[in-house]
Structures are given as structure tokens and as C-alpha cells.
């Protein structure tokens, strides 16, 4: 039996609590409830309040995994409040949504605990835990929602929760970074809201499946393209899209590294997921593709060049993250199945790699020079860094290579001038990437100069998380064949727009008002 079959097969596990489909809302609602009750609970018992977050996240993860096992094959729809779509809000749960939704509580748990012991009082600790839970709830909702405005609400919640988290270090620099991030993000939200207004005016609905149904007749025009541009820039702020990514280096350099790991790793991919849904369902015209290709290419170019010039570890990672997400946007510009497949591959690879690398940056938060000779004191972390760097560059047996190859092949097949330019840029960026990552790797393994302060050692927990993610990466290397079949299946299901519409509206609804 191949892994692919194993992943698709419905196991006969006797689950102690078998959730029904509509109970998937609990994955969003339980963290919200936990967040609301956190501060009152902290006044009663500090221990209970400390345990509440992990318990709620574990319950949420369990629920989503159980649902994936039970209903993981075919997509289904949950109408919230029981109002039939398109009148009410729906959660559209396909394999892609379940994959990302399940990742949210798991990754939040990985980066849940603070690196520094809690200096602040219990009020502060409860507040921080509450905001973390809100972030998890919002990100889960972002993965599951099938309604444009509902997505906007969850996106805003993700944004506001991350403002609170990136300011946690309470330094002046962190506050400046936070307020600049906040203002840019709020401008993006205004633009996204204008985009939503235009889409609503053109189609008369907010349900994504119904928008997909109406899109050929209503959104394939300049006004539709304008709406897409506004939505893209709006939701692109969190996805580190080129012109609206100025917040990335300063925020990731000033926020606690584990928060950066969560934001750069998973949360940015959920914004990508929103853009992916929009591209697949509503805006698959050439105009939208050209826009994505152009912004993605500029992102790769600016990100990797800035990473090459960066002098400190967190900002190097931040700029490299901008470049990697540029590749994701380039992949999304490829039409249909190819694009979604390639984009998912690059995005998932980046989730694993960047989460681990930012985790290591909890202690390696200084300049690159200070890392000289770190392999002597922290051999495992150094070896892990090299592993992730190799995969990030795209050295053959590792998954990063296959992900990048998918994009390159797709671009070559498209063969237009712009696509070939993008291809050249990605290759150039790979060379730049190899240069700066090797520079760090060499520095890690060189002898420290005499008299220099000992290079910092990453904490045991961060190394454990990185090792876990490294194992995931190696596992993916070994099982690359079934894995790509599995991912291809997800991409095929995601791009099957007719099936999506049929799932949300089992009985066809009126096409025009």
C-alpha cells in the first residue's frame, strides 16, 4: 500500500468523540471561547489559565484531525446558523482547507510557550495567551471560510491579534515596527474593503462559490480586475506581497522569534490561501495572472537582494521569506492546476523551513558575524540550519528542489516573455540565495577568532522543534513520490470549480438576479 492510499483511506479508528460535520465550527469557536474566558479564569486560578490555551488548541487539533480522517475525501459545506447558502455564511471544507486548518493549532502549540520565563504579572500572561488563541481561531477561520466578507473579518482578527503579539518585547523599536505594520495593514484593509464593495456591486453576492458561478459574466472586465488588484494588495499585506511588505524585516526583527516563526511560517500562508481561493474561483483572467507574475517577480528580486545584504540573522530570514513568497505568487500566476500545485508545494515547504529557522533565531538573534564558530557549541542546530538552507536553495534530493522545479517547469511551459523573465529571476535569486546561506553556513563551521564572545546557543526546545520539522523535511524527501500524488490530488480538488459550485449549491440556483 502506498502512502498515498494510506492518506486517502478512511481508517476504522474508534474515536472517543466522533464529531459531526457541522461541529467543525468548534475549531474556530473553542479558541475564541478560551480567549474570552482567559482573563476571568486567571483571576480565579493562574494554573488553570496557563493550561487553558494548550488544552483548547489540542481539542481543536483533535477535532480537525478526526474530521479529516472521517470526511477527508470529499468536500462538504457547513452553513452557519443553518441558513442555506448563499444567504448565510458558509464554511467550505475541502482537503486544502482541512490541511491548513489542522496545521494552525498544531503550529500554534509548537510556538506557544515564551522563550523567556514570564517576567510580567499574571494579567499580562493571560492577555498574551488570549491573543495567541485569537490568532489561532482567526487563522483557522481563514482556512475554512467560504464567504468573502467572513474572510475579511477573520483576516482583520488575524491582523489585530498579530499587532498585539509583535509588540510583546516592549522595546521602542518593537513599538515603531508595530505601528508601521498596523498602519500599512489598516490601509490594506481599507483597499480590500473597497475591493469587496466592487465585487458585491458586480455580482450581488459574497458567497465565494456563487461568485465563482457568476464570475465569467460579471468579473471578467476592467472593474473586476480593479477589484482583484485591490483585494490582492489588501490581503497581500500579510502574505508579504511586494509593494506592501515593508513591514516584514522590522517586525520579524523586533518581535519575539517564536512569534516571527508563527507569522512568517504559517500565518502568511493563510493569507496566500485566501489569494489562491480568489484566483481559482473568481479571478482567473490573464490580467490577474500578469499582475501576480509582475508583483511576484519584483518580490523575489527585492527580497533576495535585500537578504543578501542583511547583516543580522532575523532580517536575513525575513527578507528571504519575502523572496520565497514571491515565488509562491509567481506560481499562482500559472493558470489552473499547474499553478495551484506548484504554489502549494512552495508554500508548504516554506511553512516547514521558515518555522524551524525562525525558531532557531530565538537565540541566534544577533548579527551574522556573532555566529562564527557556533557549530562548536551548537552542532545540532548548525547541522539543521545547513539542512534547511540546502532545501531552501533547492538542492536536488530535498523537497525544496521539487517545489522550485514545479514552478520553473510551469513557467517554461507557459513560455511567454514575462514568464521566461520570471524564470530567469528565480534562477538568479537561487544563486543569490545560495551565496548568502552558504556564507552563514561557512561562518557557523569556521573557527571562532580568539577572544571573541562565545556564539549563542539555541535553546533546547527550539532545537527540538527544528529537529521535528527537519524530520518532516527528510520524511518528505523519502516519500516525495506519494507526497506529490497526494498534493496533486488536493490541487486537483481545489481547482475543480464546477465541483465546488455543485457542493455549495446541490440544487442549481438562479444565475442572474
Amino acid at each position, binding site marked *: 500500500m502506498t502512502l498515498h492510499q494510506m492518506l486517502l483511506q478512511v481508517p476504522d479508528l474508534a474515536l472517543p468523540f466522533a464529531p459531526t460535520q*457541522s461541529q467543525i*465550527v*468548534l475549531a474556530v*469557536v473553542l479558541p*475564541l*471561547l478560551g*480567549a*474570552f474566558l*482567559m*482573563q*476571568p479564569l486567571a*483571576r480565579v486560578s493562574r494554573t488553570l489559565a496557563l493550561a487553558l490555551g494548550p488544552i483548547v488548541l489540542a481539542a481543536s487539533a483533535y477535532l480537525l484531525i478526526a474530521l479529516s480522517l472521517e470526511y477527508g475525501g470529499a468536500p462538504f459545506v457547513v*452553513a*452557519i*446558523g*443553518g*441558513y442555506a447558502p*448563499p*444567504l*448565510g*455564511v458558509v464554511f467550505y471544507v475541502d482537503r486544502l482547507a482541512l490541511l491548513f486548518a489542522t496545521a494552525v493549532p498544531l503550529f500554534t502549540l509548537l510556538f506557544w510557550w515564551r522563550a523567556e520565563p514570564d517576567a510580567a*504579572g499574571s*494579567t*499580562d500572561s493571560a*492577555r498574551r495567551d*488570549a*491573543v495567541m488563541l*485569537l490568532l489561532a*481561531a*482567526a487563522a483557522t*477561520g481563514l482556512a475554512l471560510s467560504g464567504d468573502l*466578507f*467572513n474572510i475579511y*473579518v477573520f483576516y*482583520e*482578527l488575524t491582523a*489585530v*491579534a498579530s*499587532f*498585539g*503579539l509583535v*509588540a510583546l518585547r*516592549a*522595546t*521602542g523599536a518593537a513599538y515603531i515596527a*508595530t505601528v508601521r505594520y498596523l498602519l500599512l495593514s489598516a490601509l490594506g484593509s481599507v*483597499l480590500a474593503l473597497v475591493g469587496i464593495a466592487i465585487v458585491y*456591486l*458586480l455580482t*450581488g453576492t459574497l458567497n465565494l462559490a*456563487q461568485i465563482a458561478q457568476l464570475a465569467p459574466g460579471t468579473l471578467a472586465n*476592467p*472593474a473586476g480586475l*480593479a*477589484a482583484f*488588484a*485591490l483585494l490582492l494588495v489588501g490581503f497581500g499585506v500579510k502574505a508579504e506581497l511586494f*509593494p506592501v511588505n*515593508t513591514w516584514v524585516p522590522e517586525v520579524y526583527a523586533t518581535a519575539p522569534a517564536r512569534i516571527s516563526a508563527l507569522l512568517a511560517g504559517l500565518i502568511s500562508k493563510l493569507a496566500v490561501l485566501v489569494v489562491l481561493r480568489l484566483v481559482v474561483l473568481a479571478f482567473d483572467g490573464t490580467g490577474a495572472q500578469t499582475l501576480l507574475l509582475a508583483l511576484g517577480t519584483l518580490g523575489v528580486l527585492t527580497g533576495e537582494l535585500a537578504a543578501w545584504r542583511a547583516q543580522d540573522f532575523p532580517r536575513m530570514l525575513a527578507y528571504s521569506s519575502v523572496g520565497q513568497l514571491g515565488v509562491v505568487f509567481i506560481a499562482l500566476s500559472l493558470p489552473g492546476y499547474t499553478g495551484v500545485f506548484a504554489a502549494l508545494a512552495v508554500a508548504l515547504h516554506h511553512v516547514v523551513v521558515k518555522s524551524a529557522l525562525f525558531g532557531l533565531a530565538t537565540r541566534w538573534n544577533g548579527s551574522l558575524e556573532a555566529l562564527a564558530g557556533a557549530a562548536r557549541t551548537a552542532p545540532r542546530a548548525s547541522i539543521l540550519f545547513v539542512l534547511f538552507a540546502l532545501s531552501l536553495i533547492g538542492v536536488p534530493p530535498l523537497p525544496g528542489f521539487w517545489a522550485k522545479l514545479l514552478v520553473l517547469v510551469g513557467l517554461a511551459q507557459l513560455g511567454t516573455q514575462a514568464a521566461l523573465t520570471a524564470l530567469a529571476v528565480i534562477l538568479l535569486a537561487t544563486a543569490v540565495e545560495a551565496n548568502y546561506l552558504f556564507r552563514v553556513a561557512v561562518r557557523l563551521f569556521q573557527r571562532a577568532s580568539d577572544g571573541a564572545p562565545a556564539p549563542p546557543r539555541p535553546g533546547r526546545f527550539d532545537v527540538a522543534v527544528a529537529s521535528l520539522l527537519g524530520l518532516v523535511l527528510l520524511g518528505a524527501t523519502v516519500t516525495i513520490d506519494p507526497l506529490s500524488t497526494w498534493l496533486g490530488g488536493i490541487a486537483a480538488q481545489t481547482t475543480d470549480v464546477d465541483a465546488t459550485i455543485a457542493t455549495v449549491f446541490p440544487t442549481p440556483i438562479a444565475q442572474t*438576479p
Partner: protein
Amino acid sequence: MRNIASLLFAAGLGFLLLVIAGQLGFGEPSMLIGGDILSAAPDEVGAANIVTAVLLGYRGIDTLGELSILFAAATAAGLVLAGGRGAAASHLSDAPAGFILRTGADLLFPLLLGVGFYIILHGHLTPGGGFQGGVILAAAFFVLVLARPAGGMSHTAIAVIEGLAGAGFIALGLWSLLADGDFLKPMLGKGVLGELLSAGTLPLLSLAVGLKVGAELAGLMTQLSEQPPPELTGQPLAGQSPEHTAGPETQD
């Protein structure tokens, strides 16, 4: 450099909006789902105010998300304002209010409270509802804080109310999930359209929204008003070292 990029961005935005201006038909919306909701809402939800019916019924999860955003903003503001110093420096700023303000507050507080609850509980009948009434509740509470800055109860009360009101909203949703299989489905009878006791659980949801919004906003304002004024903080604290004292340098 960055300014040029920003200007280009603003110009692009303006151009974009101008281009679409001619294409959009304002004044004749398609009413694709709007029309359906207008005809279905009285039967499905039972609220005379259809905006409230959509807000708490059809799009109830949006409202829950929006309450969470307000909660996140208030909590994050609390984290920020308390950041770096352990706990908030409380009640430094304002001397006890004068007699007139205190008497005024005593009169105003119950009045605002009454108006707030009236608006909240009539949200399914007339314009208004949880948000609007909640703002008035927050104003009532803030008047009290202004008049008696040293009321130590406020923080605990706000934290408890905001937590329990939010939990109450979710609990109503969970009740219907367990009893009927759908989250946030209206429970209880719909009643007679236009009466105070109608629209099922909608007034209860409205109450939860009102209390939550009121508590969040009151908390935000209290936190802001308890910050020490600048004359107490005196000189700027961080970001200074000898080299910082040179004059501004032109950049960009």
C-alpha cells in the same frame, strides 16, 4: 525612494478608482442575495429590523468575529500599555473630579445606562442594537470613571463582563449546535413580528453584543485615561545615547 514608490502607489490607486467609476451602476444594485434576504428574513428570523436580522442571524459568525477583533484590540492595547513596566500605573493622572462633574455623573450614569439597554433590547425592532447601545453603555461607564478616577473595581468588572458577555454569545451558539445541529441557529420561538419578545434568541445575542462592546470600549478608554500624562514622564526615556543628539539629518 520610498516616497516615490508611495506616490506611485497613490496615483495608481486613484487611477484605478477613476477607471472603474464609469463602469459601476450605482443606484440599481442587483440585490441577488439582498432581495432574497429581504423576503426570507421575516419568516426565517422574525426580526422587524432586517439589518439586525442579518447581523445576528445570517451573518452571526461575522459579528462574533468582529467582537473578537474588538476584544483583541482591547487586549493588545492592554498588553502594549502595560508593556515594559509590569503593570499599568493606575490613577496617577487625574485629580478627583469636582463636585459638578460628580453630581453630573451621578445623574448621567443611570440615564445613559437606561438608554443603552433600551437601544440594545429594541435592536430587532428599530434602528440600533448591540453595537450602538454598547457604545452608550461604554460612555456611561466612562463618565463614572471620569468622575471617580480611583474606583479600583473597574478593571475586574470590565474583564469579567467582557469575558462573560463574549462567552454568553458563544454559549447561545453552542446551545443551538448541541440541540439542533447548527451553530448560532436562532432558538426559542419567533414570536409575533414587531413585538419586544420576538425573534427568538436574537435579543439575547444583542444583549451579549451590547455588554461585550460596552465592556471592551470602556476598558480601552479607561486604560488610555489611566496613562500618566507627559509632564510626569518628563524626558523621553529610551533611544538616547550621546550620539543621538545631533540635529536631524535629511534622508530620502
